[in-house]
């Protein structure tokens, strides 16, 4: 190699302004050759390097000065273009800033989801122990996070890699300070809780905070709620366990758990002194699934390596259960049907409490809206490209190279994006409370909270700028000056590319609109479903462990004659719940889940459930409270019972095999996600009463509730009056889907708004470029409606194609979502037609409104200038 050192030459060439590059590198090469000829090549190389290092910074600075002069020019031009084309500029800014605001909010959401529970020091070593049951083919329905009481200690004893454990039992408890009763979220935990998890104490000692029986740790906000101050260490209060209040001492105050913690609590109490008392049957038993068990592993431990130890531990502690499973189905030899697994803390939230698909769906929605805004930017710059192409021609003739033009156009797009981002941040700031409300989160907008946020915003800016500026940068800059300046090149506002983009916009918007309509239809359908029992005017009062029969009797004494009360009854669960509430029986070798509903004798009357055959429970027959059940039609069908009345329910153990006295219709006692399952209604004490059902007569609801509360206070002083209307409570089951319906609803609103905005801009551009043509047409006798039709036809067709493409796409999504419900609406073609019609109508109105102005202009105005 005889030339100068390549790296040095490259360094110089990147620091030099392109205009100077040739001569400087040439000069240096010449001197280098001279040096090389007169001295040694090594000396020549050294000289070249010294020259490079000395000069490169100065050259670089110079080229910056030159670039900044051009930048000022570009900036001026951008602002002038913006000022000249106010409508398009406004549409671009509005679209991009709305899109970016949504993306910022969604970024916050996703980050919150992904960083759940990561604030604990050493969280990578914390695992939750879950109990997995496998089908013979190796599949599993996910782990059960509830474990037995002795599990934690056994794990630490048997498996060396496990350092420490903590068991957690969560429930709501009543707390009394003086005469005030509060309902608080409590966690019963081992003392190691404060060591394994990072919940800093504001006062008190973490070592001893939970060490003795009567200790309790309050969070800051609980302390303020209960005592009005955080200076509470050493104070006492009462906690209701079972049916009695016990006195406890406050030993510490912890900071409130952050919003992105799965473990949420208002107070902590020692598990060892409370749970064994409440569940004496579970002490020392591995078969009882009761508490969540978390472990901390040594930092060098790999949970994969522990699987064998887990299998062995499971086999030794739950041998009977494994035996039963193996008997029930054919498992391959050596395959253990159930075992423990350690799930990393970071995965616990997403696998059990949330669903990563929400993050994906939201991200997709955000990107769709941003894409629609970017497409507006692109189509509008295509529409404007005729006037911009002249600029390109002139710039090229006076010496601009293509790379400069590409830089200019991309720079312009980036500048627009930058302004939009500032606006978007302001929008996001104002919209955050609404967004938090919709998504049920407590997000805060803090730019510097984590490095990922500024980086993410920078990513959004670059991505948006690059996409939206790509057309002018890559296409406009390629025009040949001769063609452009001689007007040989025709750039029309509605070429195939533009049409494709507009089609895509409307495909996406129509998809979202149809999604909204389908979800709304399904929610209406659920709301109007006939459940087979009375849902309105029914108040549910939570008994919170007090004796139901006693409460009802006392209540009836006070309210029995009140005309506002139509009936009082008791039941073990609130109707409309999701999941199952009963037990599994074995029938012909198969496990069948039978739900149990314990009621009192008046329940069926109060709830307007009339039996298909047989009789209801009779208060005059004491024998009805044991050994007698009413079953639903689904149970009859499932077990293939023939005579039914007088039969006993198959599959139950002989000692509690009750006689069937009546058959109820299949009323929907569960949520509508599920099909109606087999149900036994009984008065027997399988379960305790948990709710009092009070049916009101129509009329003054508030007065009735007040009366109920007054009477409740006379019935018991231990438990506050907690009530809810049955229909509200049943609707809560669908809260998640209702929330998503709202999100899709809002998103589709934005999407269609932006798409129509783009259409508006595009129409105005087209009309502008055709003013003369329209003038001539009018002179020659064309009618206004004919001209409007001419303009509309083009766009309407594009929109229609887009909408048409959306139908199959929307159908797939709608079908997928609806399949999660057992009771679903027939989302008929009308919904799809309606979705398309809404969009098409909006598009037509936009186009016509925009073209009307031009069409109404007198031809003489448009034609006289030439």
């Amino acid at each position: 190699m005889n030339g100068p050192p390549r790296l040095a030459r490259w360094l110089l060439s990147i620091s030099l302004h392109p205009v100077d590059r040739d001569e400087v590198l040439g000069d240096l090469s010449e001197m280098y050759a001279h040096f090389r000829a007169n001295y040694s090549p090594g000396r020549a190389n050294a000289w070249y390097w010294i020259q490079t290092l000395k000069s490169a910074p100065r050259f670089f600075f110079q080229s910056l000065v030159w670039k900044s002069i051009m930048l000022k020019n570009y900036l001026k031009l951008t602002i002038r273009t913006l000022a000249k084309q106010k409508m398009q500029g406004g549409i671009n800014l509005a679209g991009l800033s709305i899109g970016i605001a949504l993306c910022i909010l969604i970024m916050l959401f996703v980050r919150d989801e992904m960083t759940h529970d990561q604030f604990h020091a050493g969280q990578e070593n914390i695992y939750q122990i879950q109990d997995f049951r496998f089908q013979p083919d190796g599949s599993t329905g996910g782990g059960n996070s509830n474990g037995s009481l002795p599990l934690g200690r056994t794990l630490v004893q048997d498996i060396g890699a496990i350092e420490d454990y903590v068991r957690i039992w969560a429930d709501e408890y009543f707390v009394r300070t003086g005469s005030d009763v509060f309902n608080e979220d409590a966690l019963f935990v081992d003392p190691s809780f404060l060591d394994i998890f990072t919940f800093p104490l504001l006062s008190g000692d973490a070592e001893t905070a939970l060490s003795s029986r009567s200790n309790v740790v309050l969070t800051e906000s609980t302390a303020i709620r209960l005592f009005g101050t955080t200076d509470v260490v050493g104070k006492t209060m009462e906690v209701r366990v079972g049916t009695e209040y016990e006195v406890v001492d406050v030993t510490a105050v912890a900071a409130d758990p952050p919003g992105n913690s799965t473990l949420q609590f208002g107070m902590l109490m020692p598990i060892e002194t409370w749970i064994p008392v409440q569940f004496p049957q579970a002490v020392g038993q591995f078969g009882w699934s009761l508490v969540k068990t978390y472990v901390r592993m040594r930092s060098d431990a790999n949970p994969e390596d522990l699987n064998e130890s887990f299998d062995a531990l499971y086999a030794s502690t739950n041998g009977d259960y494994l035996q039963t499973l193996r008997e029930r189905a054919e498992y391959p030899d050596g395959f253990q049907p159930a075992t423990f697994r350690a799930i990393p803390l970071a995965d616990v939230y997403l696998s059990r409490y949330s669903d990563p698909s929400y993050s994906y769906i939201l991200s997709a929605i955000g990107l769709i809206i941003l894409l629609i805004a970017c497409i507006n930017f692109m189509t509008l710059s295509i529409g404007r490209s005729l006037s911009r192409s002249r600029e390109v021609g002139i710039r090229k003739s006076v010496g601009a190279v293509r790379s400069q033009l590409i830089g200019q156009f991309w720079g312009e797009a980036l500048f627009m994006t930058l302004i939009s981002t500032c606006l978007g941040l302001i929008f996001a700031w104002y919209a955050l409370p609404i967004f938090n409300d919709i998504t049920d989160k407590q997000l805060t907008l803090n730019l510097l909270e984590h490095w990922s946020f500024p980086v993410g915003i920078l990513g959004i800016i670059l991505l948006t700028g690059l996409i939206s500026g790509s057309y002018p940068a890559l296409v406009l800059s390629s025009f040949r000056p001769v063609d452009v300046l001689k007007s040989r090149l025709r750039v029309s506002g509605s070429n195939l590319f533009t049409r494709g983009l507009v089609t895509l916009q409307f495909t996406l918007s129509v998809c979202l609109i149809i999604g909204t309509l389908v979800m709304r239809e399904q929610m209406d359908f659920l709301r109007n479903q006939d459940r087979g029992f009375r849902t309105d005017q029914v108040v549910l009062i939570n008994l919170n462990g007090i004796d139901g029969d006693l409460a009802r009797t006392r209540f009836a004494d006070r309210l029995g004659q009140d005309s506002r009360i139509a009936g009082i009854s008791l039941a073990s669960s609130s109707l409309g719940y999701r999941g199952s509430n009963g037990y599994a029986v074995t029938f012909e070798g198969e496990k069948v889940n039978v739900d149990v509903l314990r009621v009192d004798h008046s329940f069926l009357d109060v709830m307007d459930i009339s039996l298909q055959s047989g009789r209801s429970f009779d208060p005059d027959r004491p024998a009805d409270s044991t050994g007698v059940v009413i079953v639903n039609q689904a149970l009859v069908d499932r077990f293939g019972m023939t005579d039914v009345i007088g039969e006993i329910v198959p599959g139950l153990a002989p000692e509690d095999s009750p006689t069937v006295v009546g058959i109820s219709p299949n009323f929907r006692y569960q949520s509508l996600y599920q099909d109606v399952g087999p149900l036994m209604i009984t008065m027997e004490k399988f379960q305790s009463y948990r709710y009092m059902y009070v049916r009101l007569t129509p009329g003054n609801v508030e007065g009735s509730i007040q009366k109920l509360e007054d009477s409740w206070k006379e019935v018991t002083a231990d438990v506050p009056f907690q009530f809810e209307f049955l229909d509200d409570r049943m609707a809560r089951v669908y809260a998640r889907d209702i929330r998503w319906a709202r999100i899709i609803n809002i998103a589709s609103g934005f999407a269609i708004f932006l798409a129509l905005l783009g259409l508006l801009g595009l129409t105005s551009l087209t009309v502008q470029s055709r003013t003369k043509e329209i003038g001539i047409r009018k002179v020659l006798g064309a009618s206004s409606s004919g001209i409007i039709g001419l303009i509309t036809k083009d766009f309407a067709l594009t929109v229609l194609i887009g909408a048409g493409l959306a139908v199959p796409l929307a159908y797939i999504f709608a079908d997928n979502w609806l399949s999660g419900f057992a009771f679903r609406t027939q989302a008929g073609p009308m919904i799809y037609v309606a979705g398309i019609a809404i969009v098409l109508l909006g598009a037509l109105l936009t186009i016509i409104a925009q073209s009307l102005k031009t069409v109404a202009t007198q031809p003489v105005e448009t034609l006289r200038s030439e």
Partner: protein
Amino acid sequence: MLSRSDELILLAVWKLQDDAYGASVLDHLQQKTAEEWSIAGVYAPLKRMASRGLLRSSTGWPTPERGGRRKRLYQLTAKGVALLQDSRAEYESMWSRLPDLGLSI
């Protein structure tokens, strides 16, 4: 006013006449002065003085030893020559009749 380095560069261009470009100017300065010159230290003043109208530039032919790159040749303008002569006159008037300080070198 000209700085000393500007003045030296202009003088080099004058001396080199038709063959004044970055490399030759640098070479000339290296030979005539005891200072180390960098290419940027020559190049930037050349350019700046060309934009002030003291120098006129034209494009020269590429040569093989330049790797086929063009050179930019500089020539003094009348304005440049006038400025140099003014500067020399100033120097000489400053130097003339300086008192003897009695310090021997």
